[in-house]
């Protein structure tokens, strides 16, 4: 049952992404509406996916790579839906939804789709709290990343003084910079709390708050990048291009912390 919901989510996510990309070319107002409804359905399917797994028993997220990928994708969809309530710029979907789609598609190719038994030491309410906080933070950073890329494209259009690709479809620099900044200011506390709860949980499970395992180290690096960016924005009034590049670098660090560490390095956080 849960796998059927997963397939449904994947299908609707694909439809939504396709329509967001189409909207870059076709201004037809029906296109983003179709995209949004497809996204609602994708979100419902994903939510049902986790609900059925929860009912089946066990912690449904974060116990293996498959669930983590789907959960990250769910968080991205959720944060996109939330951010676009405030900022009605569906074009952002064209830059953020592909990330969610790639994550979900990657999950589809993973052989292990079952519910894992987790070591008894890790069975705790801290697991869902820690995982949700981290992934919601990461999802908001994905939003900041998408807006930053759009900013760089639009800023290049304006600097070159030739309305090039996407000049007409992309929103104003002001909106893009604000969305990127807002996503950051909301995402950062999530990541901070995610790291803190992780370390409390580590104290319970392993008897130590911090062990410099690769995941922990890279989370800290990510946190420092975003902290520096927020600091520069607040104190020196950093904005625009520099801030956009920083948001992109920050998200690359997020991806490495999430995927790179698991694939290349090994440690306490790596799944079997």
């Amino acid at each position, binding site marked *: 049952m849960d796998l059927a919901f997963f397939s449904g989510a994947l299908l609707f996510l694909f439809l939504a992404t396709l329509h967001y990309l189409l909207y870059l070319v076709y201004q037809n107002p029906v296109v983003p509406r179709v995209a949004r409804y497809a996204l609602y359905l994708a979100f419902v399917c994903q939510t049902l996916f986790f609900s059925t797994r929860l009912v089946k028993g066990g912690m449904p997220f974060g116990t293996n790579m498959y669930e983590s990928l789907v959960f990250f994708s769910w968080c991205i969809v959720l944060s996109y839906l939330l951010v676009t309530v405030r900022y009605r710029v569906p074009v952002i979907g064209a830059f953020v939804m592909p990330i969610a789609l790639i994550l979900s598609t990657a999950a589809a190719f993973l052989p292990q789709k079952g519910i894992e038994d987790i070591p008894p030491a890790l069975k705790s309410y801290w697991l869902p709290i820690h995982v949700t906080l981290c992934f919601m933070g990461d999802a908001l950073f994905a939003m900041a990343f998408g807006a930053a890329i759009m900013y760089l494209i639009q800023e290049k259009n304006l600097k070159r*003084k*030739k309305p090039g690709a996407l000049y007409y479809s992309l929103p104003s*620099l002001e909106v893009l910079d604000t969305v990127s900044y807002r996503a950051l200011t909301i995402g950062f506390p999530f990541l901070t709390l995610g790291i803190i709860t992780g370390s409390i949980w580590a104290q319970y499970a392993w008897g130590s708050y911090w062990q410099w395992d690769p995941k922990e180290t890279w989370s800290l690096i990510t946190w420092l990048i975003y902290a520096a960016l927020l600091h520069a924005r607040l104190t020196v009034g950093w*904005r*625009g291009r520099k801030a956009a590049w920083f948001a992109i670098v920050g998200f690359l660090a997020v991806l490495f912390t999430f995927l790179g560490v698991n694939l290349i390095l090994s440690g306490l956080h790596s799944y079997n």
Partner: protein
Amino acid sequence: MDILIVGLSHKTAPVAVREKIAFEGETMGDGLKTLLEYPHIAEALIVSTCNRVEIYGTAVRKEVEGAREDIASFLSTFHDVSRRDIDPHLYSLSGDEAVKHIFRVTASLDSMMVGEPQILGQVKDAYTCAAQAQATGNILNRLLHKAFSVAKRIRTETRIATSAVSISFAAVELARKIFGELDGKTVMLIGAGEMAELAARHLLNNGVEHIIVANRTYDRAVSLAEEFGGSAIHFDDLEQQMELADIVISSTGAPTTIIGKKMVQGVIKRRRHRPMFFIDIAVPRDIEAAVNEVENVYAYDIDDLEGVVQANIKAREKEAAKAEEIVHQEVAQFRDWMSTREAFPTIVKLREWAEDIRKSELEKTLRKLNGLEDADRKRIEAMTEAILNKILHRPIAQVKRASHSKRGGGDLVEIMRKLFELDD
């Protein structure tokens, strides 16, 4: 009944000819009344703008040729111009071509400046006038309403009218792409000049709230500031005041540049890197080209703006191709409506005729049958209905199908009327 257009436009006639046969508010009503008195004209509508004079009409009994001649001679006699003067410039279209033309005109695809917004209003006014004069009937009503909805569809589904095609509007649009909403923004106007003032005015009309005016002669600055409802500053305070401005329009007669990269770097720092937009309308230029290299600063000179306008025009042309596709679809739909409209009364008549036979025969038979249960009676009735529907289904489907085809169902409808003697 067939739709036709006779008229001339900026594409076929010089203004000297167009103005001779133009209609104004008062002459329009008289014109429509006179036109309807011609023998082949069933419905009529006059569109008269500075770029075109066109008469849309429907011909009585499909006599398009006669109607065409009627309109041409109406134009000549009503305006007292000789046929020789106008005939070479007149074009005439009928059927699908006419429908397509009306859709294209209303959607501003046939305009001198493709996508300009006025034409839709002008056609709407012309329609209101004709409807009030009771010069339009079923077909033109339907056609014009369709034309308005096609125009709206094109406006929402393509970007045909969204980009600026004049320099001063291009400046407003660029400002929007940088700042988003312009509410609460401040513009600084340095020097004076028609185009600079026009750009400033457009900005103020689009949300910009404050204007600061600087001029070499302070009195000139004061009077201009008064005109705009802004404040005047001394030319020496320019650099110091510049940090207040989000948008700077410069148009002085200075022989060398007055705003340099260094100066702007200082200003932007004092503004805490909030973006700035410089518009240089002066020739020779007031603003160093290198100003554009400063982070969060966008500096456009007159050539840059012209370049943006050219790109916008190209983009509009691309969008026009999408719009033509929409017109194409809608013309086909309208053709369907027109042909079904022809076939429909015949189909209804055939049904009525057959239904009458069924009812009377049924009654005769039922009267002779005694002791029937109610249920049996209903069953027999249902059977006669089924037989009728099954037999009629094929001819009706054929006529409908033919009427949606390119050639139309006219011939088949004619045959059907003859075969079943449906004409009274």
